[in-house]
């Protein structure tokens, strides 16, 4: 008789649909509650924990330490208030900070085994990856580094001050592939990010080991460096990132 695990693995032949875009677009509903019995048990435990917490608080009152500040991420360079086409360091958790330099109107992040090139105009942002070395590209796919992968986040404010937050990620099959990032407020009004700030978070790859995101940088459409990502902050409400923008007549 076949092993149950083997039998269940037959389902792996079924291709799973990619529902990530759908997840980023939907307005999430409430989390379903566990059964009432579990909630009662959880409530009871919460009461016990709260009582214990009050006890601890009482014993420490007067001698407590202030909470430790959250340290900035490695390589945080704090260029948020230093506009201008100067080289900036970007965080790198697995090595020395990478450097981003402005070349004309393009921001180039000099990455370990390749180069990530940005070009921007008021209506679009293009990210061009080139010179990816085999096995050492920007990668984060399917639990390992099976292929170059670029995780890109892009955010900004619109010409009329509205927030814009679009996040995209695309597989980069070959050097020379271009990823088009487009922005939309989600209300079907196409906008131009005149006051936009842009960031890229890149998942690096070293052999089979996936490493943590390594670089964060920001530049506005004029080419000025505006800052780096402040890590560990809550997520703003999701906004539809789908449609490619066209220049607004108001811009």
């Amino acid at each position, binding site marked *: 008789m076949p092993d149950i695990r083997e039998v269940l693995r037959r389902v792996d032949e079924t291709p799973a649909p990619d*529902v990530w875009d759908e997840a980023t677009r939907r307005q999430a509903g409430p989390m379903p509650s566990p059964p009432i019995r579990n909630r009662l048990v959880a409530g009871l435990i919460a009461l016990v924990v709260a009582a214990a917490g009050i006890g601890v608080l009482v014993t420490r009152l007067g001698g407590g330490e202030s909470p430790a500040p959250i340290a900035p991420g490695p390589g945080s360079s704090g260029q948020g208030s230093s506009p201008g086409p100067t080289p900036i360091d970007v965080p790198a958790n697995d090595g020395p900070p990478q450097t981003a330099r402005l070349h004309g109107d393009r921001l180039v992040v000099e990455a370990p085994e390749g180069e990530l090139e940005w070009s921007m105009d008021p209506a679009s942002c293009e990210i061009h990856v080139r010179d990816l070395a085999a096995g050492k590209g920007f990668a984060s796919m399917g639990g390992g580094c099976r292929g170059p992968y670029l995780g890109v986040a892009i*955010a900004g404010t619109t010409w009329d001050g509205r927030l814009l937050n679009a996040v995209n990620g695309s597989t980069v099959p070959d050097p020379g592939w271009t990823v088009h990032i487009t922005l939309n407020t989600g209300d079907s009004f196409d906008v131009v990010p005149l006051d936009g700030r842009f960031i890229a978070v890149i998942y690096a790859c070293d052999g089979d080991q996936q490493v943590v995101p390594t670089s964060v940088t920001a530049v506005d459409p004029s080419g000025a460096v505006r800052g780096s990502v402040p890590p560990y*902050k809550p997520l*703003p409400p999701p906004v539809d990132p789908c449609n490619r923008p066209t220049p607004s007549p108001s811009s």
Partner: protein
Amino acid sequence: MTDPFAGVESHLALERLYREEGARMWRAVLLMTGRPDVADDAVAEAFAQALARGDAIRQPRAWVWKAAVRIAAGQMKELRKQGSEVPPERPADLPTPTVELLDLLRDLSPMQRAAVVLHYYAGYPLRDAAALTGSTAPAMAVHLRRARTKLRSMLEADDA
């Protein structure tokens, strides 16, 4: 004004989690429910809810799995109420081995299916599988034992 960069790290971490776990999660929900449409919705909704909560989630992997399992269970409960638990027509795009597998699992109760799928397919220990379904480890052990017995007898009958 809210910082437009806020939460980007957690968003990307969730995307990475999706790339790592999404397909396996979708297949696990498919095995539990027998319905690709429910699997689509449960996985998308679980990640949508995780995205909305951002850094407030301390253990995204466990959180998203739990959300997907519970959303799927809730949907199946609704479908059972409506008498439409089994899809009106067999999904055409599923490979034959998967369809046969779903037919096999259909003879188990929902909790037995959850136990066997979470433990044997998703690789969760009993205690964690129980946490995902809102059950207890002893109850999950009973479901798993009964599921195993049923599955073995069905597989033996198929072999014979």
